[in-house]
């Protein structure tokens, strides 16, 4: 049953600084709300715990895509539609562009923001595998200053992030320059659209060597729904880095992925299915490297 909306405070601070001041003045009391595609669902089902909300949706300083020589910087208030529309992202970060197109429906992409999606911190979210594979960094701001950390350090556990109560996710910076890499992303959801992933994998690899000996020079793999948070699959990467693409390598990759994956049974899928299908996707990608 829907919450009584009269019980909630919701204000629009005039600027980002004003938001940060409010967060700093009463840490943990206020919750930022941008596109509303998560928090409004909680409100509608009577389970929104936070009673004081701060509007971010109107803050144009959080909504930008800035293309620089070695990275694309994306403001946390950037919508998935903005990301899909960006030609630079489509060319330089195709996995992110693809992931954005899988996020909810068109209407939700028009509202939902990348920052909101990351801070909601679902282990099943669509963008994180791509951001992990690309080695993104995140910039967090507060009225006390700014800090930048690798995105892989942002998620601390199930729906827990490195954000302090007075901090806001400001920018997601994604390195570009992947032209030498083969890139792969696949989402296995409950259906083709409007789906939450049962498992998803984003992977990219640089293949070195000539036609007779193709060696995986570098590989980067991000996954969703394989653990309590979005994860980079370091063991699987290590198992194949510097290796020839052959049956032995494929097997080693599968084994390593199985070792590091910690999926669970939940309402959408089973742990065994998730682990096995993730390995199938990884194998599909590895085999495509010799194609």
């Amino acid at each position: 049953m829907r919450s009584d909306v009269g019980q909630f405070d919701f204000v629009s601070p005039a600027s980002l600084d004003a938001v940060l001041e409010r967060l700093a003045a009463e840490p943990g009391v206020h919750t930022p709300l941008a596109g509303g595609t998560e928090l409004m669902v909680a409100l509608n089902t009577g389970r929104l715990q936070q009673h004081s909300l701060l509007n971010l949706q109107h803050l144009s300083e959080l909504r930008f895509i800035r293309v620089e020589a070695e990275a694309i910087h994306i403001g946390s208030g950037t919508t998935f539609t903005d990301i899909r529309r960006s030609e630079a992202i489509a060319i330089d970060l195709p996995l992110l562009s693809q992931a954005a197109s899988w996020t909810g429906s068109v209407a939700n992409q028009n509202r939902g923001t990348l920052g909101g999606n990351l801070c909601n911190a679902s282990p099943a979210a669509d963008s994180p595998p791509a951001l992990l594979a690309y080695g993104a960094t995140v910039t967090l701001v507060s009225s006390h200053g700014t800090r930048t950390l690798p995105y892989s350090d942002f998620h601390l556990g199930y729906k827990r992030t490195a954000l302090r109560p007075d901090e806001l996710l400001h920018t997601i910076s994604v390195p570009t320059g992947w032209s030498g890499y083969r890139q792969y992303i696949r989402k296995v959801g409950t259906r083709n659209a409007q789906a939450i992933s049962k498992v998803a994998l984003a992977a990219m690899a640089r293949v070195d060597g000539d036609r007779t000996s193709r060696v995986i020079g570098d590989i980067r793999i991000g996954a969703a729904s394989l653990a309590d948070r979005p994860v980079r699959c370091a063991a699987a990467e290590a198992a194949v880095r510097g290796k020839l693409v052959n049956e032995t390598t494929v097997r080693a990759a599968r084994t390593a992925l199985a070792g590091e994956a910690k999926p669970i049974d939940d309402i959408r899928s089973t742990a065994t299915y998730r682990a096995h299908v993730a390995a199938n996707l990884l194998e599909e990608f590895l085999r495509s490297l010799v194609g």
Partner: protein
Amino acid sequence: MGYTPQSGTGLLGSSPLRKEGRDKVLGASRYIDDQSLPGMWHGATVRSAIARGRIRSISYDPAVDWAQYAIVTAADIPGENTIVHLTRDHPCLARATVNHPEEPIVLLAHPDKTALLAGVRGVRIDYDPLPGVFTIEESEAAVAANDTERIIWEGSDAGGTANCFKQYCMYSGDAAETEAGLEAAFDTADFIVEGEYATGAQEQLYIENNGVIAECFRKPSGGIESVCVRGSMQCPFYLVHALTLVFDLPEDKCRVIQVETGGAFGGKEDFPSVIGSHAALLAMKCGHPVKMTYDRAEDMAATTKRHPSRTRHRTAVSKEGRLLGGTVDFAIDGGAYATLSPVVLSRGTIHAPGPYKWPHLRVRAKAMATNLPPHGAFRGFGAPQSLFGLERHMDKIARTIGLSPEELRRRNFLGTGDCTATGQPLNEPVDMQHLLTRALHEAGYHEKLARFTVENKTSSIKRGVGFASFMHGTGFTGSGERRLNSLVHLDLLPEGRPQILVSSTEFGQGTNTILCQVAAQTLQLPYDEITIARPDTSVVPNSGPTVASRTAMIVGKLIERASQQMLATLRAHAALPEAHTADDFHAAGLRYLAKHGTLRESVRYEPPTKIYWDDDLYRGDAYPGYAWAVYVAEVAVDMNTYMATCTRFDALQEVGKVMHPVLAKGQIEGGVAQGIGYALYEKCMWKEGRMMNNQMTNYIMPTSADLPPIHVHFEEVPSIHGPGGAKGIGELPMDGPAPAILNAIENATGVAFNTIPLLPEDIFERFTSLGHPHGGSEDLDVTVDRDTRTEAVEVTA
């Protein structure tokens, strides 16, 4: 694009614009939640938190100002505490015990809708829990073991036995002769093929939730004068019947008005009796009109679904592929109360033999009680369940004896003049051979069969084709139409235009449109000349419930007869010429009205004299007519993700005269889409009787991106029983998709799956055989939703 002929002739078979369509595309249609009445309050339901137990106490949180609320419990019911369907076992509000999760116990109303959440949370109910049974098997086991602790239903005023609402035993002939024939058939058969098939519950998922607004009027003395309920529903007179008992009022004091209804599919057949009675009780208590509308989560958790089922086949077959005899054991899970289970079971039983000749057949059927919310009507009404079992079994027989699925069916199809398993002679033409030939041709079946066999060897995507042959009976089963005794009126309005008065409702299928077409065609008037009155039981006669694919054929025929009567009246008494224009008609109408004041033609159902049904022996003419069909599915199974997708669907059916090609196509496509969901996506996940995925985000219905092209093909063999030769089509398309798809998946993968819904996890489990105790989607942990729920989730990394 639709084409509307100017005159009546040729109107049936053309596609005039949907009667209420303009308002719908304008967003101007007023559904129940779009309406309000002066001084209206809002109602909510406090529901059982457990599956089964005794209610120890009900207490009210002192922090809530209860003076502002109207509170209704079972003790407030002025009449009988029952929601009557076929029996009276179903309480309107639980009093001493609860028998399923979400069972209504206390009703609250408040002038301000936003106060309801605090009210519902402020009612505390304590229970002494009792053990429950949650599957057909658990219910059967309790009976077998005489485990009185788990006998959850004892019988009712309308019969039934411990944990069993209803049983049928249907024979293809005299019982003793059939038993002897079966024994001989199994003794001499070249092959005996056995199989077990199961289907899950399915949510109707109309996009408009259940909702009503109720009023209660008092006499000057203070007693209850009458009640009035308007709302989203299929069968206004069902709700009238329910209200007469709950309020102990005569029928004419219980007025029900159907308003624009946003989808139903059977889900608003029996359930409005519950929510309608509840809202009326609150209106009685608070003295204001009360609106009750469920939100999605409540609607999904607390209202009816399609009955889960289990079908066991044992079949004697000759090596030439002739069915020599068969036994079918069909069981459905009825949930906690009988509601409509006996009639759902009946339709499932009668459809279990399919469109085949059975020299000897016995169908044993039963509806078991479980501690789930009562299952109810959903498009197909038992037939999709038993036909799923049969059509999967036919493929199994074919594989066992080394015939193609096509050839096996060809050797056993019913044809014109044959008798069905209930002994009904098929006097109208039936040509399943031709339907099969054409359906396979339209789908490119043989070419694909050959091509996929080659391609699958080297592809990680396995493709396949499969089909199902089936029929669906139009109208109520057996003596049902005779008992309904439906009545329609056709009035001449003061301006000389005809108006149809029926209780048959529009909820998207096209009732308004096709009935107006029938009247216009028969009266030789333009379509726009005909109007249809809103179903208000104080105005319209009881033309029966809008269910069972009966509206076009049964009610349509009554409208046709009423229209003929009106023509005859105006010709005889108002000099209407034989060939007339609309102006001639108006003039004649006005002449008649000037002389007689009013003109109302009333027509009552007259059973065709040739139709006979024996309820005790369960033999005779089960339905006045059947629609016949062959559906072909093409699938792709991705062996990396174990996801099966339907990639093309061809639906060929013989439905008599197609009254409105655009609407008819829409009916078939919509039914096929629901069938695809039934087969591959839609799984109700239960935990101790409670539906856990009661949200649109985790109950997965197909989106526009999930459905394949659906090709609809019709054959038209006019029936004498329907207007202009029409038969029913509403439910038919629900029957075929699931077995056709699973047959195609077997063709693609070589593995037989016999349970739906079939999720990727189930396919994965079979292919990897990891030896889990249950396996596949049985291992889903429904208590954990890592994406959308944050509360009560303890996750260890």
